[in-house]
């Protein structure tokens, strides 16, 4: 457990999120505000689920044994449901705010709902990732040997990769979720909730990282592709982008197609 582990795991977990923040969000103050508001909503959802977990724990008198494990499972499932509920609540708030801004200022370009979906997903993701991982990270700076009692020595790496996948999943879930709300396709919300529950419950397989991580990444890839098409991308635009022939790139470089 050295500085190498610390920096390595920190950048694995938070590198993409940081890049997304720096390149897409940091430039516009309105987006930063919505990001922080999204993070706040996630935090409140976590608070609520902790309150319920704590209450149930008090009711069952804090006995040790299998009941604690069941309580934890219950806590996780409840927390996922409350998170999705708060995503819906944030959507409603953003909708009202957008309408309010439009009515005050018809000419002003307020951010579109798709952009807000992305920003809110990123806000949820960053907060979720940070809360899950930052204590583990700060422990990795200190002295110790990982897995000395027979646990897996890949504890930190696994946590880092899991955090990364959760952050990216939150971004994609945000985009897909908001789109479902906009088009009033409620089954999309259900799918998002179910995939979130699936990813969370898979983490119960904890020492057996392979299955857990691989399936989480597969789900992330599917959600990513879905979110890409929902956000307006297409195979053609992807090809143009990859071949550096899309409009923005050409305009920027003043080259003809």
């Amino acid at each position, binding site marked *: 457990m050295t500085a190498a582990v610390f920096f390595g795991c920190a950048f694995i977990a938070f590198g993409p999120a940081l890049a997304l923040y720096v390149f897409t969000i940091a430039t*516009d*103050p*309105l987006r*930063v*505000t919505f990001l*922080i*508001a999204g*993070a*706040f909503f996630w*935090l409140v959802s*976590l*608070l609520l*689920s*902790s*309150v319920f*977990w*704590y209450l149930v724990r008090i009711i069952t008198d804090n006995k040790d044994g299998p009941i604690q494990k069941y309580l*934890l499972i219950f*806590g*996780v499932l409840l*927390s*996922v449901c409350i*998170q999705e509920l708060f995503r819906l609540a944030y959507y409603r708030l953003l909708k009202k705010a957008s309408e309010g*801004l439009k009515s*005050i*200022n018809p000419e*002003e370009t307020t951010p579109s709902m798709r952009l807000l979906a992305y920003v809110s997903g990123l806000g949820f993701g960053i*907060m*979720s990732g*940070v*809360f*899950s991982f*930052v*204590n*583990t990270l*700060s*422990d990795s700076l200190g002295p110790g040997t990982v897995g000395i009692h027979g646990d897996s020595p890949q*504890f930190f790496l*696994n*946590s880092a990769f*899991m*955090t990364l996948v*959760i952050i990216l999943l939150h971004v994609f879930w945000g985009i897909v979720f908001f789109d479902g709300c906009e088009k009033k396709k409620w089954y999309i919300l259900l799918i998002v909730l179910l995939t979130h529950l699936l*990813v*969370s419950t898979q*983490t*119960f397989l*904890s020492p057996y990282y392979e299955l857990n991580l691989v399936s989480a990444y597969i789900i992330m890839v599917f959600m990513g592709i879905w979110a890409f098409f929902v956000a307006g991308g297409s195979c053609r635009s992807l090809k143009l982008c990859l071949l550096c022939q899309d409009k923005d790139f050409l305009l920027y470089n003043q080259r003809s197609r």
Partner: protein
Amino acid sequence: MLTFMASDSEEEVCDERTSLMSAESPTSRSCQEGRPGPEDGENMAQWRSQDSEEDCEEDPDGYACSRGPGRPPGLEEELTLKYGAKHVIMLFVPVTLCMIVVVATIKSVRFYTEKNGQLIYTPFTEDTPSVGQRLLNSVLNTLIMISVIVVMTIFLVVLYKYRCYKFIHGWLILSSLMLLFLFTYIYLGEVLKTYNVAMDYPTLFLAVWNFGAVGMVCIHWKGPLVLQQAYLIMISALMALVFIKYLPEWSAWVILGAISVYDLVAVLCPKGPLRMLVETAQERNEPIFPALIYSSAMVWTVGMAKLDPSSQGALQLPYDPEMGGVKLGLGDFIFYSVLVGKAAAAGNGDWNTTLACFIAILIGLCLTLLLLAVFKKALPALPISITFGLIFYFSTDNLVRPFMDTLASHQLYI
């Protein structure tokens, strides 16, 4: 206290207050002299706002009133909520920086978390056997501290009313001297001790002298805006660290709660000292001496230099939306940082509580700025943020932390 910033009229171009953003150091009157900054910061911010109020009559939509009198009203309608978010970020960045400095220091330098006596303003000890006694002592400490603050504020109002400007200037200069030299010296000493860096006295004195002298010049006279903002952030952080070190646990939390209530009362009630200060300044129609305020605005003199002197500022004023800014009292910086710092110092290496308080304070600031846009008058910046911060501190520490720790130890992700 949160206010709009006014661009002043032409005569005031060379005034220290305009672009030179003098904020006298709020605090150095810490241990010996008296309760410093926060109320002063609030005072000053309030005055600023009243000035801006008069200039901003024609601008009902403007988030930041940034122009002088005589600007055509139509232009202002464009200065709308678009700049609102910009001002939010202009305040987020310094508040975040101050908190980062405080949290980084708390987590690395052990000096600021060691118990080493208490301020004379909190004479009752908290090392009592019973919980009730401890609570009583902390409430008494709070009462004493708040009354010291109230007395200082009223003293300042009286001084201002009777035009004892020199006295106030001297007081503020003495405060910032102590803060910039003595507290910096102590801070530097502790940091060097923590990292086991040997520095000889001549180098140390050279460094502290340069830092302090440039700070005095920037804060009380002229200087680049960024440098001034940086110094204000640093002295707020230093003062917050002093509070974190010397305020006992429970007293600190009760004081935070009490000072937000005081802030609310002092700024909004008609007979509040800060409001009276504003009204006096308004009657005299004068800029107050440099304030304990962090200003996010750009330099006004740049635009002024290009101005045709013969025009009386009616339509020739270069319209620059950058001119506007929002001002936040240094006392607000200090108490935000005290809250986050206490959260960082408390929980045995736990970062979740610190982060939760940080986000809560930023959201409170956001809401306060929203209210500022709606009401367009000086508002207390402490109540909403501190309330959110306190709620999130206690709930995260007691409810969320066990939950997240259990999840993390089983490597479960929600």
